[in-house]
């Protein structure tokens, strides 16, 4: 992937969507969906504000796609409410749909049509005027790096090119809310990185992003807040650190040093909860390793330890998920 997609929104105020009458772009309350006896989504509630990336993290079959399908107006809900930019939203709400950019997990493109024809079709479907559509199409093609291949049928594109175009379609009409359903599924590491950078840049432009993934690293890197979803229910919600704190696990700073011994100076630090001494190694347990690390190193040095190596172990969302659901994220 060439340049990131943030330029799509542009810096020209005329091209910015007049969205934000409120900071709360999306509000879901008690969403519920059943398929026969199966409760796919149960009592799911969350909000997303402008410029925020909210991640729905859960394994396959957890209810992520069903949840966003109800939010996108694709699927009728059995219960609960959705509002977009403070207005009630549903399957027949054209107003709300114009304010949502939906990027499905599948490559939702017409393979026999070219990139430009695909973009033109969706631009007109979102009621962009001819002139505006023409401008936006060229902008999107430029940004996703497909200008040179714009006339080629999509079926001749590589997987990465299709994935980029798939995201580009979702951004054509400059939506204030972007829903990305596992946008990096099956994407090579380079393209994945570019997509993540682009999403981060979009939030910088004020776009609210709902991002579903079962990749823990993506959620940790990208999302301001994360909802951990399993069996159709949100098990926990918050910023990464809040979720980790919820579980009660501590960060661990491991100091490899000569002549290890108990170090009272370390134990005296307010950040330090516990110090374990083993042969050639000290395990210092803290709430936030990144902020505590400089003081821990300074205290160890003052105590006369010759520190040869430092390792930081932060509990990740994988362990949080395991703690909350009793199973691994990729089960």
């Amino acid at each position, binding site marked *: 992937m060439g340049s990131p997609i943030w330029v799509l929104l542009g810096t020209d105020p005329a091209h910015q969507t007049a969205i934000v009458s409120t900071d709360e772009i999306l509000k879901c309350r008690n969403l519920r969906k059943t*398929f026969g006896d199966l409760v796919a989504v149960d009592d799911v509630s969350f909000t997303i504000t402008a410029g925020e990336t909210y991640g729905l993290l859960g394994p396959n079959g957890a209810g992520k796609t069903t949840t966003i*399908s109800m939010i*996108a*107006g*694709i699927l*009728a809900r059995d219960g609960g409410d959705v509002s977009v930019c403070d207005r009630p939203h549903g*399957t*027949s709400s*054209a*107003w709300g*749909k*114009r304010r*949502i950019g*939906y990027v*499905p*997990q*599948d*490559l*939702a*493109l*017409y*393979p*026999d*049509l070219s990139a430009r*024809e695909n973009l033109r*079709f*969706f631009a*007109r*479907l*979102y*009621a962009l005027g001819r002139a505006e559509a023409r401008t936006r199409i060229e902008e999107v093609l430029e940004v996703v790096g497909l200008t040179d291949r714009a006339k080629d*049928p999509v079926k001749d594109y590589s997987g990465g090119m299709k994935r980029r175009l798939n995201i580009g*379609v979702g951004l054509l009409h400059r939506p204030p809310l972007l829903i990305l359903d596992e946008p990096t599924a099956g994407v090579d590491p380079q393209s994945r990185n570019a997509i993540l950078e682009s999403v981060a840049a979009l939030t910088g432009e004020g776009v609210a992003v709902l991002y579903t993934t079962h990749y823990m690293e993506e959620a940790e890197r990208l999302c301001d807040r994360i909802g951990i979803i399993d069996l159709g229910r949100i098990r926990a919600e918050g910023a990464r650190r809040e979720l980790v704190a919820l579980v009660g696990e501590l960060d661990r700073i491991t100091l490899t040093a000569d002549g290890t011994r108990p170090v009272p100076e370390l134990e005296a630090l307010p950040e330090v909860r516990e110090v374990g001494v083993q042969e050639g190694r000290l395990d210092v347990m803290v709430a936030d390793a990144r902020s505590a690390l400089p003081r821990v190193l300074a205290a160890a040095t003052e105590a006369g330890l010759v520190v040869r190596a430092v390792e930081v172990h932060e509990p990740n969302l994988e362990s949080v998920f395991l703690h909350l659901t009793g199973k691994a994220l990729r089960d």
Partner: protein
Amino acid sequence: MGPLLLIAAKDLRQRVRDRSLFLLALVVPFGLAAIFSVVFSGVDRQETATFAVADQDGEQIARTFTEQVLAPLERQRVLRLRTAATEQEARDLIARGQARAAYVIPAGFSRAVLSGRPATLRVIGDANAPIGSFVARSVADAFAAEVRYVQVALAVRGGGSPQEAAAVPAPVTLEDLTAERRQLSLAESFSAGIAVFFLFFTVQFGFSSILDERRDGTLARLLAAPVPRATIAFGKLLSGVVVGVMSMTVLVIASSLLLGARWGHPLGVGLLVVAGVLAATGVMALVATVARSTDQAQNGQAVVAVLLGVLGGVFIPFQQMGEVFVTLSLLTPHRWFLQGLADLHGEHAPVLAPVPTLALLGFAAVTTAIALTRLGRMLRA
């Protein structure tokens, strides 16, 4: 361009790209018309078979037969006449393949008829042309019945002069022949039948493409767009209708040019074609909503198209299939389409075929309504 036309245009563009539109709208109808023209050219020649006439009598009754029975049939292009001086010459014409059958009117034929004595009209048929022989014999049978009528009339009146006999109304076979002309010719009937049969395959892609979109993931994107769901469904239907009308129009024009088929007044035929396309689209849409995948839909649609085609008299005229099938055929759009074309056929045919057209529109309305209802449920699930 509104969303409905936008969706239909996109579907058609896809069909142009994968060449299926070209195939369905041009190649298939042209191909069918060309095949029909080759297959039915022989049949058409049989329909205007040459009959030899050897009139060795030349009196009133013989002239009545040749001038008032055979000559009108020739003018109506049911047959061509060729005069033979003798029976042997007539036989030679048949032997050389220059006539399918021959009438031999022996000397004294008229006098025998008028005097109430047995009279013989010989019909010589070509064993290799059973249809021609059958037609020749049927005409002779009809004439013989009329001769009997003349004899009875004269007997009742206690005899009569040859002039009186000649004044007796001529055999009235024209009325039956007029009725026959309201039917399609064999070539036209098969052309129309196969055309309406293929029409069901032509229009099937329209609504079924919703299943393609669902398989490819684009349906979710369409549903997420600010477009009413009914618009998406009607856009799909419209693309099928457009291709169906194009295909049928090409077929009608091509069969007229290549086969010399005369389908009737363009307005009536146009309305009938549109109604037929709508009915076919509705039926195929309904079948598609029962399926879970594109393959399943295509298989189901093929089965339904063949079954309806058989019942509707595409392959075997339903009149030959028994009373039950005649009744069942009323449940098929094929029957009404063919009936409509037959109604519009002929020199004195009406401009419109209202009953068949309305019946087809009824099929379209009912099947489309059910299909849309089922689709709505499917999309809500």
